[in-house]
């Protein structure tokens, strides 16, 4: 196991061999002033927020926005876990508790998880990974950030004005006719933020179709791009349905239209169909990008091509397609027909196939590889394990019989947190660490990174594994009080949540620290094969010093001899260090990396 932390930051010492290809020469050259002046000549007169159209800056703007919402949503989770420390509802009233879990869900789903990887890592890296200068529509991209924040402000208004208590699902008739909280403002917020999601998806689809560099064929695309393409399909096809459905709920609430109100001849089940038609695929909006990140991490840190690349790529699209056909499994007990339930159950099982293809192929990639257990890879391992648990318990709740036993219990809560937090957030953090050197130009402190990754893993499992047990024993979700015998497991869960919180705050601190004090990263610190690593860190305004031409498949390291040479050098140095027991490169009495090896 080699790490960058134990005095072995080989990259910063590494000098490129003499006979490298021209491309490699250029990647290590700093951007010349001449280039910058030309680039700046097309910069709009004011570098004000209205003029930011560069995809990398918009990605960073999104990073700031969604981080704020992540910690706001986390704050509500904190209050939920505090309340559940003791069996009686003694900290907050049941009404406040309803608002806490509702706002936790709404903010985490619509303002953190759905935008997280696509808007931050996607905006920053999709154009770079396909070899483009920017996304296809930079102005729309900026518009999407504004829409997101406008929606976010509406949500904040709803929060400070008394909150929402419908749950994140907004089921009528309660949401439309009975709730006395800010439902109309909250659905308006989601309506607006939904358009930002649509615009992002549209931009990625067109960017991936039309902006690829010469030679970047579909099957040379990194798997991150494939998964974001599948994600964008869902965003584009699903989000409008949610928008119109929530608009109808708002209309019903404000104008007493009665579309979903049985008192007026409306059908509340229709709302559930329309809502889950989007909101089930929305789960794949959250998990597919994380799967894409994990594919990148596994390839880079095993130094191998992903086993069965085409199957993993096709699995992304298959998950997106199947994802649209399974929404009814949220409604097994809602009064839909048993035959519909049967079909939806069967189709839900079908989603397990492409998901398992991915998990097995990542695992197969590990076989006989040289795994570097650096921070991003720890998150990738965390993802694979936790996603597997979340996915397998998903099969429990997709089975008609078991679902009736565990519907609306903590079993379901634990299941989807294993997917959304154990999967999506792990993927997000792994991706942030992996690409941080490229984004900031600096390395994060490796030892702190590993510590935080382990903290998140331990905290997560301690929080959510007891909830499987609680749910199976029958503790219902959305209650602020519970019988005494559930207390031990609930206290475990709350204790885990506080560890998890520390694990989330740590990266905030050391990543911010590293922006100023971290070691300079160099163009390709890991090293990895993607186009985004073939340019300085942080990248120049138009991403590449010269337009890239792609002649290799994704992850094909043998096509990039300079990387192979560099890894061989590293191996030799490492073995030499083992022989003499040196802890630092300076103590080594061996030749520096052979030029052109």
């Amino acid at each position, binding site marked *: 196991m080699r790490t960058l932390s134990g005095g072995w930051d080989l990259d910063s010492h590494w000098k490129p061999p003499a006979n490298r290809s021209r491309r490699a020469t250029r990647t290590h050259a700093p951007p010349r002033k001449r280039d910058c002046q030309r680039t700046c000549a097309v910069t709009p007169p004011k570098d004000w927020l209205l003029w930011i159209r560069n995809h990398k800056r918009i990605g960073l703007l999104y990073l700031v926005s969604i981080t704020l919402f992540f910690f706001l949503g986390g704050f509500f989770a904190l209050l939920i876990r505090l309340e559940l420390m003791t069996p009686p509802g003694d900290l907050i009233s049941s009404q406040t508790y309803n608002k806490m879990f509702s706002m936790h869900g709404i903010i985490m789903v619509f303002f953190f998880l759905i935008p997280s990887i696509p808007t931050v890592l996607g905006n920053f890296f999709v154009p770079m990974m396909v070899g483009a200068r920017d996304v296809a*529509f930079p102005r729309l991209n900026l518009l999407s950030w504004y829409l997101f924040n406008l929606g976010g402000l509406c949500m904040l208004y709803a929060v400070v004005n008394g909150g929402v208590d419908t749950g994140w699902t907004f089921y009528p008739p309660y949401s439309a006719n009975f709730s006395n909280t800010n439902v109309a403002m909250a659905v308006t917020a989601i309506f607006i933020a939904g358009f930002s999601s649509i615009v992002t998806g549209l931009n990625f689809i067109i960017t991936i179709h*039309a902006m690829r560099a010469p030679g970047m064929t579909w099957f040379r695309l990194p798997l991150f791009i494939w998964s974001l393409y599948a994600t964008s399909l869902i965003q584009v*096809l699903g989000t*409008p349905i949610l928008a119109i459905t929530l608009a109808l709920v708002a209309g019903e609430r404000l104008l*007493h239209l009665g579309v979903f109100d049985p008192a007026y001849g409306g059908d509340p089940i229709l709302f559930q169909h329309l809502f889950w038609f989007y909101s089930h695929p929305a789960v794949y909006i959250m998990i597919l990008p994380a799967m894409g990140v994990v594919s990148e991490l596994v390839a880079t840190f095993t130094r191998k091509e992903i086993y069965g690349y085409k199957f993993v790529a096709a699995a992304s699209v298959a998950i997106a397609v199947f994802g649209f056909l399974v929404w009814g499994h949220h409604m097994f007990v809602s009064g839909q027909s048993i035959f519909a339930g049967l079909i939806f159950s069967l189709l839900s099982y079908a989603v397990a196939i492409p998901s398992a293809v991915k998990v097995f192929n990542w695992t197969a990639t590990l076989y006989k590889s040289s795994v570097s257990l650096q921070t991003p890879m720890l998150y990738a391992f965390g993802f694979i394990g936790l996603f597997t648990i979340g996915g397998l318990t998903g099969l429990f709740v997709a089975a008609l019989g078991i679902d009736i036993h565990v519907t609306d219990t903590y079993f379901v809560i634990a299941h989807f947190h294993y997917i959304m937090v154990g999967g999506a957030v792990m993927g997000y953090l792994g991706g942030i660490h992996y690409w941080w050197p490229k984004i900031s130009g600096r390395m994060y402190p490796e030892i702190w990174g590993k510590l935080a990754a382990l903290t998140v893993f331990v905290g997560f499992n301690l929080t959510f594994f007891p909830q499987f047990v609680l749910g199976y024993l029958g503790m219902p979700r959305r209650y602020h009080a519970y019988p005494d015998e559930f207390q031990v497991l609930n206290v475990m869960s709350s204790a885990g949540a506080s560890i998890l919180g520390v694990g989330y705050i740590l990266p905030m601190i050391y990543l911010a620290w590293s922006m100023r004090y971290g070691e300079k990263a160099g163009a390709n610190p890991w090293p990895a094969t993607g186009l985004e690593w073939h340019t300085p860190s942080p990248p120049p305004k138009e991403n590449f010093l010269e337009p890239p031409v792609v002649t290799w498949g994704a992850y094909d390291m043998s096509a990039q001899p300079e990387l192979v040479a560099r890894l061989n050098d590293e191996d030799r140095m490492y073995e030499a260090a083992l022989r003499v027991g040196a802890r630092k490169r300076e103590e080594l009495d061996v030749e520096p990396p052979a030029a052109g090896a």
Partner: protein
Amino acid sequence: MAETSVADRHTHSAARAHQFDDAGQQRDAVTMGMWVFLVTEIMFFGGLFASYVVYRALYPMAFAVASQELDIKLGTLNTAVLLVSSFTMVVAVFGSQTGSRRMLVGGLAMTVALGVVFLVIKFFEYYQKYVERHIPGPSFAFPEPYTQPAKMYFTLYFAMTGLHAAHMIVGCGLLTVLIVMAWRGRFTPEYHSPVEVSGLYWHFVDIIWIFLYPLLYLIGRHLE
């Protein structure tokens, strides 16, 4: 060599944005972008169409009775107006492709004019419904036994035609901007994708109406 390539990439024409390599790539991206946007629009209207299907299946008689309240003459006239506007839009696109500024500006102006005619007629239809107290809300009135389902029908009627009218208003605004740009000679046979994609949008809005008209106006007319 690298210098010239960097310089080439930044020789801007007003028509081409910096992120595109050439005009062809830009045209492909813009056209495909509009098609994908129209797909999202189909899904957006799709939620309403799905609700319509469910409630019409639940309340077939009420929908037929309520549908008789609509003014079929104005509805048919509006359908004709929109179909002609699609034709004038095609004329404008043809003008932009062949470099005829007269056809381009004339076609766009006619299209906007027909769009406004449609909206004015729609306004009078809405006003009629207001007078007849058929607007869903506290003052809604409809004879029994169909009061509630008829209210559902009119909710869907106003939601669907209202959303359609909103798209018409956006379309008229878009085309007005295009008229100004065309007047200033911004479009050439090489560069006219804004006209083309706005045309796609306009035809899409027309097609939505082609579905709305029979679904809303023509229920059970053969029974009369």
